[in-house]
């Protein structure tokens, strides 16, 4: 182990040598530069290992004195860790900056000094020394920024030096006062003698110190200068500022934290978290990449500051490891990701966000970019996710719900602008202008790789290693590696993997989970047959699909809420990416992601609240008696967003309709059931005494039935085939929510039966739509027509599925309706039953419109030559038809198992009498109904068939057209605006109030952000004024 003091010898010596002998050193200069950096990286590592093994914290005392007289350095576990990563960043940054430093000797020298300063800030335990190191850092940084000498850089550097000058003065005055009061400059001694820091002098000292630290940490609102630095300086340097300097300053603040009284601490927390929220809010308005990253950096540091103030003060000792992991994880996540982003930005020539679309030409860079964004947004499998989870858990445990709410808001805003950016990159016009250098790429890739590694470590530390959680990602990566295999083979492989997984998973599951496994695996494998149809490699599609489906398995097997939430987030992200693949404009995918993340955050809040009251993340029981209402609202709210309930449905139509045609059936039929699974789990795990009796179920029921009604109503006015089906899905899932809300045996049986039935018919409909769209090249229904002759098989499939959808006997849809109404009436939800009935009649309208506009009516001239849909679409459709027919003829083969499973939770009210299903109100014999219907159908049919010899088959224009002849098929087909009278009568119900509401929310966010942004005038004097104001404000708030 090397004494850390050598760091402060070797680095300046090297810098001095390089400066004075640079004419003689030539190429050796680079060698020295890196050797020294490597040394500084190596130095803390043995310490870290030693300390992790349980070694004791080392103190270095200079000049042989002991505190309070000596200047001492400390290397504890925090210091060693932070030094390791900062110096690592230093090496990587230096590597990146190599090009930038070419031809100048000052760059490397300043860089070395800067690194030394950072290490000093971290290690020193002396207040004045801290000041000195801060000055060293800021001066070297100022020089680094202004190195290239452009006017922009000079202005930014000047603002920086003003701000840091003011901060230094404040810091110095604070230090002087403290020295006066405590008689020492050593921080530890000072903390120990904290009782001495009293009176006006003491509080002023602390406030001064605090203000200085806040300025140095670039907290809101005293950070205008920092934004200019991020924008103006070279990306490599910005990366070091965002990663290194901020982290070191954060550590300085962390060190000083025990000095401050709780009230000051809460001011710090407030400022930190406000910075996080407001910076992310303002990030919404940014159009320049570097400035956006600057906002995000400041926000992340704000979060760190706020969290450390919140957590460390509320729990002095216990659970410190978790808090360390949170802070360390957050730090490292931010450090690596932000540095990586800044480094990428250095490769790209343009400044605007959309100029990054050049990344599309470099899939590996794009992949890295996406990883970095996801890490920052706190999505799995990156460290950010674990941090997010633990923040929620810890804050909930400390009952800091308000702050938790703010942090979640900030996270959401951050995700919004990051993924809007990502969407912009994926979907805007391809730009040119990128310079790729190996020296630049190496740090980027290393950083990302490190992040995966750290994430694994964190998973290990926090929840224990779980191979299942990694499996989906591993398999997806494996398939991703097989890049050059044709898409068809990949589809086949995907199907096999899914079925294989199912085969192993099924024995582990029981009851309800088994039913959902049947929904998730064989059926999605069935839908995947449709993917065989498309040629090409389709890179990305199958990987994401398998990620989604296998994560669905993890949802089912998860024992803790962490596992559940992890898989949930993986599904969300993968679905977002797969939607983004298919859509033409990124906003549909973004809308999906924003709403899903908001839902996920609500779920997270619910889980964390449950953890707070029960102290366990085990998914066996949620909440205790006095907290159940809140948990119920949070979790149900989160899952309702996933089901697309009315009010939060606006993501749904776009996501379902605009995505690729063969993914639509999967997302609408299968992924919508994850929300149902979640709701069911909530109701089950809340405990029967609460969940069965809560009045909230009534509200849930009304939400469900309103969703069903409005979904159907929206569907009838759609001209676009897939939008109609999407709205129809929304409505059908509304029925399921309604049935779940009943909390009765009959209701839940109905819910699952509805779910199965919905998968069957909606699968057929979306697959048929895919086949039609593929052949016709249009999604507008009124452009189709008369396709029954061209696509008879598709017609038959659609016919059967709309009969199953509408609930007309004898097909399976009637069973679901029968169960639903019986359940509703049994529960005495009469008005809901009436509205559900109305909704189911409205469903007729779009069913007829669907089949008429596409298959009946006049065949269009330009579609005369179309062929039947591809076989790959037809195979799954006909398997599903067989299933529908089977459960129509023998409803008991599906109702019985469902009813049995549900009887485990609630006493059964259904009974069987032969094939007749009896409820407390009515009865139904699907088998006999089918036979009778067939019988009464056959008799007139035979009668009519006897006349067939006298019949003449005619063509499409042989119609009675008021003694005229039709002009063109296009003008004879009635399909556009099919229900104008409905529009007149009930159109007021479909005014997009909800869309308007959310548009207004987004508009307000942007407006507020725009107004707030105006405080950053770009004028150094204003920024100085901000600092003064802040000091005054803290003084007032501190109440001294």
């Amino acid at each position, binding site marked *: 182990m090397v004494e850390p003091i050598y760091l402060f010898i070797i680095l300046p010596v090297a810098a001095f040598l390089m400066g004075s002998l640079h004419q003689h050193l030539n190429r050796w200069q680079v060698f020295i530069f890196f050797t020294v950096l490597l040394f500084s990286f190596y130095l803390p590592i043995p310490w870290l290992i030693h300390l992790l093994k349980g070694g004791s914290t080392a103190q270095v005392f200079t000049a042989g004195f002991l505190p309070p007289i000596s200047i001492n350095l400390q290397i504890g576990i925090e210091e060693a860790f932070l030094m390791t990563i900062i110096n690592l960043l230093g090496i990587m940054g230096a590597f990146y900056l190599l090009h930038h430093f070419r031809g100048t000797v000052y760059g490397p020298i300043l860089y070395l000094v800067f690194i030394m300063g950072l290490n000093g800030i971290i290690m020193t335990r002396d207040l004045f020394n801290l000041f000195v190191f801060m000055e060293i850092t800021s001066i070297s940084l100022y020089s680094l920024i202004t190195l290239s000498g452009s006017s922009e850089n000079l202005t930014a550097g000047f603002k920086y030096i003003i701000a840091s000058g003011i901060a230094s003065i404040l810091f110095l005055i604070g230090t002087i006062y403290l020295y006066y009061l405590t008689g020492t400059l050593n921080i530890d001694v000072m903390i120990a003698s904290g009782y001495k820091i009293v009176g006006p002098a003491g509080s002023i000292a602390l406030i001064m110190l605090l203000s200085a630290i806040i300025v140095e940490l670039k907290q809101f609102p005293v950070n205008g200068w920092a934004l200019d630095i991020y924008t103006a300086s070279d990306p490599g340097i910005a990366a070091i500022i965002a990663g290194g300097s901020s982290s070191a300053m954060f550590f300085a603040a962390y060190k000083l934290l025990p000095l401050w009284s709780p009230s000051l601490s809460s001011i710090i927390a407030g400022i930190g978290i406000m910075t996080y929220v407001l910076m992310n809010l303002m990030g919404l308005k940014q159009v320049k990449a570097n400035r956006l990253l600057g906002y995000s950096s400041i926000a992340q540091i704000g979060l760190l500051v706020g969290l450390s103030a919140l957590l460390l003060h509320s729990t002095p000792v216990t659970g410190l490891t978790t808090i360390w992991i949170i802070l360390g994880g957050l730090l490292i996540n931010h450090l690596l990701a932000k540095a990586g982003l800044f480094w990428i930005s250095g490769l790209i020539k343009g400044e605007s966000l959309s100029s990054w679309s050049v990344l599309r030409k470099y899939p590996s860079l794009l992949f890295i970019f996406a990883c970095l964004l996801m890490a920052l947004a706190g999505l799995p499998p990156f460290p950010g996710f674990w941090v997010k989870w633990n923040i929620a858990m810890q804050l909930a445990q400390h009952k800091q719900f308000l702050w938790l709410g703010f942090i979640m808001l900030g996270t959401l805003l951050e995700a919004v602008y990051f993924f809007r950016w990502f969407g912009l990159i994926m979907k805007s016009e391809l730009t040119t202008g990128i310079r790729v250098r190996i020296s630049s790429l190496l740090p980027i890739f290393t950083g990302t790789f490190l992040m995966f590694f750290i994430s694994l470590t964190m998973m290990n530390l926090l929840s224990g290693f779980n191979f299942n959680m990694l499996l989906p990602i591993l398999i997806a990566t494996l398939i991703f590696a097989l890049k050059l295999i044709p898409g068809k083979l990949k589809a086949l492989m995907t199907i096999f993997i899914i079925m294989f997984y199912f085969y192993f998973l099924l024995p582990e599951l029981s009851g309800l989970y088994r039913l959902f496994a049947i929904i998730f695996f064989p059926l999605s494998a069935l839908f995947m047959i449709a993917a065989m149809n498309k040629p090409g490699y389709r890179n990305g599609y199958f990987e994401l699909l398998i990620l989604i489906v296998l994560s669905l398995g993890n949802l089912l097997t998860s024992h803790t809420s962490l596992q559940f939430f992890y898989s949930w987030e993986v599904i969300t992200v993968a679905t977002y990416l797969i939607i983004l693949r298919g859509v033409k404009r990124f906003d549909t995918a973004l809308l999906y992601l924003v709403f899903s993340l908001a839902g996920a955050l609500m779920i997270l809040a619910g889980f964390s609240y449950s953890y707070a009251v029960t102290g366990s993340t085990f998914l066996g029981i949620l909440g205790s008696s006095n907290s159940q209402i809140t948990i119920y609202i949070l979790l149900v709210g989160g899952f309702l967003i996933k089901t697309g309930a009315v009010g939060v449905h606006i993501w749904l139509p776009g996501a379902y309709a605009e995505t690729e045609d063969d993914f639509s059936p999967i997302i609408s039929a299968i992924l919508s059931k994850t929300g149902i699974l979640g709701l069911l789990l909530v109701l089950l795990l809340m405990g029967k005494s609460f969940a069965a009796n809560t009045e909230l179920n009534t509200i849930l029921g009304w939400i469900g039935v309103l969703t069903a009604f409005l979904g159907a109503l929206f569907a009838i006015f759609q001209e676009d085939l897939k939008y109609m089906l999407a709205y129809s899905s929304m409505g059908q899932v509304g029925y399921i929510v309604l049935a779940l809300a009943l909390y009765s045996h009959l209701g839940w049986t109905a819910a699952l039966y509805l779910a199965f039935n919905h998968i069957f018919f909606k699968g057929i409909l979306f697959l048929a739509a895919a086949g039609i769209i593929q052949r016709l090249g249009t999604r507008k229904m009124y452009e189709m027509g008369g396709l029954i002759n061209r696509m008879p098989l598709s017609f038959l499939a659609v016919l059967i599925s709309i009969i199953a959808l509408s609930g007309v006997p004898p097909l399976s849809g009637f069973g679901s309706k029968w169960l639903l109404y019986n359940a509703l009436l049994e529960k005495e939800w009469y008005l809901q039953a009436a509205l559900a009935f109305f909704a189911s009649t409205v469903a007729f309208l779009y069913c007829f419109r669907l089949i008429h506009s596409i298959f009946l009516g006049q065949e269009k*001239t330009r579609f*005369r030559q179309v062929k039947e849909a591809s076989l790959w679409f037809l195979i799954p459709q006909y398997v599903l038809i067989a299933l529908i027919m089977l459960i129509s003829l023998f409803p008991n083969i599906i109702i019985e198992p469902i009813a049995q499973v549900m009887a485990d939770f609630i006493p059964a009210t259904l009974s069987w009498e032969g094939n007749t299903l009896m409820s407390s109100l009515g009865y139904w014999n699907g088998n006999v109904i089918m036979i009778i219907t067939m019988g009464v159908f056959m008799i007139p049919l035979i009668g009519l068939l006897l006349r067939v010899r*006298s019949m*003449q*088959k*005619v*063509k*499409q*224009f*042989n119609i*009675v057209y008021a*003694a*005229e*002849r039709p002009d063109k*098929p296009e003008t004879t087909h009635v399909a556009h605006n099919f229900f104008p009278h409905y529009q007149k009568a009930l159109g007021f119900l479909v005014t997009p109030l909800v869309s308007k509401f959310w548009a207004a929310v987004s508009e307000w966010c942007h407006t507020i952000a725009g107004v707030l942004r105006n405080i950053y005038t770009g004028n150094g004097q204003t920024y100085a004024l901000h600092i003064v104001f802040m000091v005054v404000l803290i003084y007032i708030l501190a109440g001294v």
Partner: protein
Amino acid sequence: MLKNQENQPQKLANAGLPEHEKYLFCDARPRIRHPFKGFWEKFLNWARANSIWMLAYGTGCGAIELRPLMTARYDVFRYGIAPRPTPRQSSVIIIGGYCSVKTLKRIIRSYEQMQNPKFVLALGSCTINGGMYWDSYNTINRIDAYIPVDIYIAGCMPRPEAIIAGFKKLKQLIKSGKAEGANLYAENFDWYKANQKKIIKDWNMPDYNW
């Protein structure tokens, strides 16, 4: 009585239609449908005679005389006669007076869209010999050159009583099995078509409007 059509081509040329529209129309030739024999046909004819649905299509000025028929004053519903808005379901078409070439085209279409057995009732002098428009450049002189007519009712215009008398006569014809206009049309299809095409110059429809 009726010739067999075996020796005629089964497909119609539909030469009046442009090539890209030909697929839109059926090109089958109308066929003679032989009545049953004996009592059964008599029974069916009785039903046909007592359920006469007339096409509610006023082709000329005579249509004004049909309105009183259906209202309280004359009430033809008594005789099982009812108006019907679509030729598919009607069994009798009433040519209400003078008939211009333009109207004739529509009459032919409607007539051909009716189902066998179908009957034609022609009102007024104009349908018989042109009436007061006998020398007009655009009014046909006799309707039976274009479609087979079962009953002519003379007059300008015939009063509703005369029309009822015409209906009675038509009923007798149907009952006696002599109202086989549809088969006559199919039998002499080429002759009728030639006559029609002689005056309808822009024949933009199929040869037989199924």
